[in-house]
């Protein structure tokens, strides 16, 4: 399969502010790529550039092997779904779906056929003659997806499509979008700030910050081997625990406070001796025990425990450092309990403090 979307050295400046910096991104045909990042990271801006709604400063955008850098949005072979649904309020659902096709002078029988198909896929047949105001949020978003669907294009762009929905509907539609992707096999680029959406939907996730893609990889890779401190801290809830220290013995161990943590089994590059390094361990990769376990461990005191129902979060203090551990509900401990925290080094990440990159 070839590339569906190619972004080459894309740069976008608003006046003197650089919003996207020299960005490169290839999206395979049929791939589901999620652009993830905090607000202001440029993810929606990138999507708008792909759609042709923003004029870029420099670089090129290719879609399906065609240079579309300066093409009109409607000529790029894309469909787009917006956060606020953006349905035309004065038109019926049918009018909304056919507006683009009429602009493209698609013959009426073909329009009817495509609307019928989209309505069937999205199960919105009973809504076709209603106005958007008479629809619920979930129904509106289905219609908005339908508007992209009838265009019969290869690339779908989603701009935070589920952000305006409540939690229950959001998870329902999330599953539906996944199903739609499996069924249609289109290329999809999906912008969100919600990491659950990203992790569940994506074939690959592009984590963005400050107009730069920090890491582009599959969800598992992003979660387990974050390429830098930002990605490590951004993905996962609660956040990864960061233990600052320095590496000694040619990189065999990390000194954290007065504790020595053996780095044997670390899954990464050569550690070397560094004055400043940070060991990142996710809450679920730490075990709690009364006595020191066999592997590397640090002592800590329980401060608070939060019962989440399915499992429980322990908030502890190791020296001055706050640490969070995910434990089964049975493993809950009262405040003040002194424990030892066993660290799973094989699943941990080590970062250089200066470069913030994973070692």
């Amino acid at each position: 399969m070839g590339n569906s979307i190619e972004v080459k050295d894309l740069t976008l400046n608003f006046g003197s502010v650089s919003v996207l910096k020299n960005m490169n991104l290839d999206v395979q045909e049929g791939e589901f790529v999620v652009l993830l990042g905090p607000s202001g990271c440029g993810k929606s801006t990138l999507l708008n550039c792909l759609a042709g709604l923003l004029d870029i400063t420099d670089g090129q955008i290719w879609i399906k092997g065609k240079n579309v850098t300066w093409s009109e949005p409607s000529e790029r072979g894309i469909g787009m779904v917006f956060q606020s649904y953006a349905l035309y309020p004065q038109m019926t659902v049918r009018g909304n779906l056919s507006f683009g096709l009429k602009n493209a002078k698609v013959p009426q029988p073909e329009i009817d056929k495509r609307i019928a198909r989209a309505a069937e896929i999205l199960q919105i047949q009973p809504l076709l003659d209603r106005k958007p105001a008479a629809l619920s949020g979930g129904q509106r978003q289905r219609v908005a997806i339908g508007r992209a669907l009838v265009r019969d294009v290869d690339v779908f762009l989603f701009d935070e499509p589920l952000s305006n929905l409540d939690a229950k509907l959001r998870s329902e539609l999330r599953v539906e979008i996944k199903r739609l992707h499996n069924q249609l096999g289109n290329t999809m680029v999906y912008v969100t700030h919600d990491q659950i959406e990203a992790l569940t939907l994506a074939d690959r996730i592009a984590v963005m910050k400050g107009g730069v893609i920090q890491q582009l990889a599959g969800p598992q890779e992003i979660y387990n081997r974050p390429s830098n401190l930002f990605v490590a801290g951004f993905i996962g809830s609660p956040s990864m625990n960061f233990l600052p220290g320095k590496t000694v013995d040619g990189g065999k161990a990390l000194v954290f406070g007065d504790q020595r943590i053996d780095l044997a089994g670390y899954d990464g590059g050569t550690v070397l001796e560094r004055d400043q390094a940070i060991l990142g361990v996710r809450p679920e990769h730490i075990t709690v025990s009364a006595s020191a376990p066999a592997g590397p461990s640090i002592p800590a005191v329980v401060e608070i425990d939060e019962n989440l129902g399915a499992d429980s979060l322990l908030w502890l203090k190791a020296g001055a450092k706050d640490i969070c551990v995910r434990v089964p509900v049975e493993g809950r401990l009262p405040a003040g309990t002194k424990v030892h925290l066993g660290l799973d080094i094989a699943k941990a990440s080590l970062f250089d403090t200066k470069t913030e990159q994973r070692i």
Partner: protein
Amino acid sequence: MASQSRPFRLLHNLNAKIAALPMVLTTMVVFVGGTIWTVFYSFTDSKLLPRERFVGFDQYERLWSNSRWAVSIENLAFYGVMSLVFTVVMGFILAVLMDQKIRYEDTFRTIMLYPFALSFIVTGLVWQWILNPDFGLQGIVRGWGWESFSFDPLHSPETVLYGLLIAGLWQGTGFVMCLMLAGLRGIDEDIWKAARVDGIPTWKTYLVVVVPMMRPVFITTLVIVAAGIIKLYDLVVAMTSGGPGGNASQVPAMYVYDYMFQAQNLGQGFAASTMMLLSVLIVLIPWAYLEFGGKKHG
């Protein structure tokens, strides 16, 4: 249709640029160009037609030594200050009264605002009639037996401006009241609740809490009203034609019109209108600074 290279910048979004052409022409040719043109020719001795014979500040010297202009400026200053103070104070008080969750609010507002829909000509002519010494207010009171009663503002140079004010306030106060009322309605209900909880009396809440919060509304109102006052022309034409006694109620706009289109002394008209522009800028620049300059600093 896949264009390979960046399209020519000027042709980009061509339709939008064509559509904006009237605005661009208006701003550049009429507003900016016209203003510069007039200022430029105010330094010439243009008479019937504009001509480029420069006389430096002669026109301005002549302007300021002309007693008619001096009276115009005095009149405008007096009328302007009185009108500003009264419209804003009365407008605010009326708005506060209207904000007491009264019944028939729409009716009251409709009555107070209708004069604003009328032209200054109509306003001026009605009040000219009401203030008519023989048949108007004065005549009626005298008819009741109070023979010495005197209320004839339009025919005495000392009082003619009050006559104009009565009509001007009638026309414009309702408008200011509406702006103020909108400002009052824009204040968060919770402020009132908080003031109630703190035990602050209503009148004090208005004075200490609400008025400072409405600062932007006051400033905007002042600017709009002031800009309108400087243009004052129709009302004077209709009520007094600048009289009595020749120039007791002259205003700058009238001076400009007369010199440009009647006396065929364009240079004087240009100099006078440039002075009008200057006076607007004195109001406008501090306001723009407060309004827009302040925002950038947070």
